[in-house]
């Protein structure tokens, strides 16, 4: 039975993108070339949302910098950010951070042309522009790394260097959930507010080495301006005071996290892992004696083998003589 010809010519829909259909949205091992990346970034609806969010965040950064007079910085960030997403540069967010830092000190991009403000820390609390800028940067960084995971690599290689033949693992676009972007935006907003509060806290607490509790709230206007150096107890400078507070927070946080997750990990350890820890400890403590014993054992074995060989060599001619000597 021969296939029948269609009565009407099938007209391809111009809006449909056949290549998109060709890509397996659930396959994370396929390596994308640049064209494939473009198709995924701009024609896959789930990925496109992230791309739009990242580009919007970059536009917002550009606007804020432009408003501050750093049009060159904004342009550089726009180019680096867009290039990083489209051309899949993993270091693009780091460059963006450094560019922002530079243009915050030198708004016109010319080294030496900077303006300091002794009340900057106090005035910088909960400033709307800074909040917007921070939010935009956080959204851009998060979107960039999610897009990078989808277009190039989501899971790191197993060793320090890539093994031969080890495949690159992407996150397939099919795994993007409907609420992912909105969750990201809400979390980012919360983190920005938390960051503002933390910065305020760091600058509102000062070290009090002589007190029963080594930290105390600073008086209004004492620690926030640059000129005062002698007001902090123990004669600490303001920068050093901030440093100590931050180190204290980081230390307490790290110890708590280590305690909680370390203990949890020990609880989850399987029997073989626990036995391996004991075995390893036992071996490390006694390895010198055991090594000596093993050397002697190997020596003894070799010697026994050599003597056995020598005795067999000595007896074999006699056997021949006996066998051949019979009449």
């Amino acid at each position, binding site marked *: 039975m021969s296939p029948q010809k269609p009565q009407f010519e099938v007209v391809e829909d111009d809006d449909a993108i056949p290549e998109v259909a060709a890509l397996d949205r*659930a*396959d*994370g*091992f396929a390596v994308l070339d640049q064209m494939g990346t473009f198709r995924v970034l701009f024609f896959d609806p789930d990925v496109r949302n992230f791309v739009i969010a990242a580009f919007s965040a970059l536009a917002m950064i550009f606007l804020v910098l432009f408003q501050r007079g750093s049009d060159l910085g904004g342009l550089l960030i726009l180019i680096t950010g867009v290039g990083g997403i489209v051309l899949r540069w993993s270091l693009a967010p*780091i460059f963006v*951070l450094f560019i*922002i*830092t530079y243009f*915050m*000190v030198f708004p016109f991009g010319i080294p030496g042309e*900077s*303006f*300091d*403000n002794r009340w*900057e820390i106090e005035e910088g609390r909960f400033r709307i522009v*800074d909040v917007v*800028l*921070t939010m935009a*940067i*956080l959204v851009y*960084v*998060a979107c960039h*790394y*999610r897009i990078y*995971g989808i277009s190039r690599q989501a*899971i*790191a290689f197993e060793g*320090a260097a890539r093994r031969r033949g080890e495949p690159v*693992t992407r996150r397939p676009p099919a*795994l993007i959930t409907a609420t992912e972007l909105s969750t990201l935006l809400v979390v*980012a907003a919360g*983190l920005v507010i*938390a*960051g*503002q509060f*933390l*910065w305020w806290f*760091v600058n509102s607490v000062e070290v009090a080495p002589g007190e029963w509790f080594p930290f105390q709230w600073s008086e209004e206007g004492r620690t926030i301006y640059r000129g005062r150096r002698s007001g902090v107890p123990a004669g600490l400078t303001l*920068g050093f005071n*901030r440093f100590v507070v*931050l180190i204290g927070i980081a230390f307490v946080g790290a110890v708590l*996290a280590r305690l909680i*997750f370390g203990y*949890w990990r020990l609880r*989850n350890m399987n029997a*073989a*892992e626990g036995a*391996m*820890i004991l*075995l*390893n400890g*036992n071996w*490390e403590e006694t*390895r010198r004696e*055991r*090594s000596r*014993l*093993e*050397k002697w054992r*190997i020596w003894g074995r070799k010697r026994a083998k050599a003597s056995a060989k020598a005795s067999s060599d000595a007896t074999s001619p006699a056997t021949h003589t006996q066998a051949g000597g019979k009449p």
Partner: protein
Amino acid sequence: MLSPRGTWFLIAIVLVFVIGAFAIPYFSVVPALVALTLLLWFCSEWVLFQLRSNAAVSRLKLHRHVLQGGREVPMVWAGLGFEVHLDIENPSRVGIPFAVLEDRPVVATERVSGSAQLFTPIPAQSTISITYTLKAPSAGVLRFEGLKLRVADLHGFFYRRVFLRNPVEFLVLPPLTDDEGRQRATKRFNTLPPPGIHRLRRPGSGSELLDLRDYRPGDQPKMIAWKASARRDRLITKEFENDVPVRCVLFLDTSQGVRLGPPGNTLLTRLGSVAGAVAQAAAANRDIVGLTTFDEVESKGTLPARTKIHMINMLRRLAEASSLQPGVAGVAPEQLTRRAYPLAQDLYPELMSRKVNSMPLGRLWIPLLDRKWGFLALIVIVINLILVYFFRDWRFDALNSAGRNTRLAVGNWSFFPKLLFFGAMVAWHMFWPIILTGLFWFFHSFRGWFGNNRKELTRRKQLAAVFALQDGTGADGVERYVMDDDSYATRVAAFLQQHQIRCPIPLYDEKGVYRFRCEAKAPVLANAMMKAVGHARDNELYVILADLAELGKQLAPIVRACQVARARHHHLLVIVPWPADVPSPDEPEEVFPVVAEEFADDDSLPSGKAWKAFKRSARNAKGRDATLASIARKFNLVQIVRRSLTKQYHESFRTLRRELGRVGATVVRVNDGDAVQIVLDRLDRLRGMRSRR
């Protein structure tokens, strides 16, 4: 675990924060604020990842089912597809947003459909399934190790790899032959028995009439031949031939030599397939089949029988035999480590982690006194001490030189630095042999912390710890495997064989002798045959599936056993496996010209002066290598060696055929047509000899 991307990002934001918070806070607080917010974000991602890792990843459970023919089976048939179904259960209340699941590939199987990998989130209190279809082309053992699971956060800052171990083995029985598939459609009893062989006719309960005889009281009435009785006027009874089933005993060679080759495509696998097909076809003809496997050490036999259980047991035995792997004696421990270490890392990531399986730096220190010449260092030290203690001049000279050097070099320094310098000078002039020896000692031993030595020893220790843990030998076992090459090689070989990993094995020893001739199997096979002859009742067919081609003079016991079998009127069929890369001896001669003839009048071969020059240059290793390389390029040495080996193998096969043919055994190659059909023909011939009048 922090990924490189996470590490670099963390370094960058900490740097920006330090700059923003301590260097430029009065220019702008934005860098500090941004970096602090990013740090918070990074920490929150880490906490989330740890939470998922501890609460969910550590509690995942794996269940595996293998289905063939729509139902779960404990073993599968070769050549037929079977479905592998995996259930990954997450009993915790925490979900995993992104995971990559990969079922570890099984050796010697082909994927028919589906994928063993899955990219998926694993929601809380749910089960994820993976289903795919495999096919095992040949008999053997399938080993499923478990599932590799990689988990990462959505930004790629953290990742964790675990292996959900669930080792399970399935026998792959030889390809299933249906009852009708192997039966002949032609007439069976049309063959004449060979001259000199007489039929064995006994009265029995068969269907062929054997004879008529007078009625004896007790004969069954239905056996009375009424027409003959009427004709002769007395009762005559019919006697029928006895239907004696034909017995066939298969002797399967499982020696080291036939185990060589890629998994699933060894000579042993091919022989096992033939044996399986013969056994099933003979059973379909209601013949009785037995199986004896033998190697260089022992033989294991199963007496011929006809039940279904016997057949299943025999197929299991064939499957187990087909999965045997060659020993790795003679393989360097470093090579074994190279195979075993990545495998252990894949299968036991938590036991190979440096947190629980570490290597202290002190163990990497190379002891000087272990060297044969290490005592020289001690002698130097002792001599130096003797000089200092007993010879006053040595001490005075040292003090004198130290004072002179101090005056000349640091005469204008203050008192204490000058005193220190003087002390150092005294130590140097008095103990310079000890200092130099100590430096030499240090640099000799220090090398152990770097390079290949460190890598090799660390890997070996980690593997040794895993083996000691599995064997339950404790810290003694660790040190034994680290120190003793033989024990280590044996254990690694067992580890690799258990996980069905092959490693390159040297085929020739240091003298250039083929290591897998396995001449010890000849007496073992001969004994097994004699035992089978002792158990035999009627004429039987002995099918020897063995690689006997290279045995040469060691064939004598087998020839004697064949003579005994033939004297008892048993039939012998020897099926020799033929290596895939060796051409058939039946191919035209010009395709494989004899090497000697080809190069007999070749002027370009090194001769005369050229040969002397070659010998001169071959005295040192570098010259020898260079000369051999140039000769190899010029004459295509690989081709020459291959042709020579082919010729040698053909000659050995002809010798085998001649030797065994002389005593009445038929020798065929396994790829000479259909080996199974040849065996069935012989069985038919045996059957015909008995039942045909």
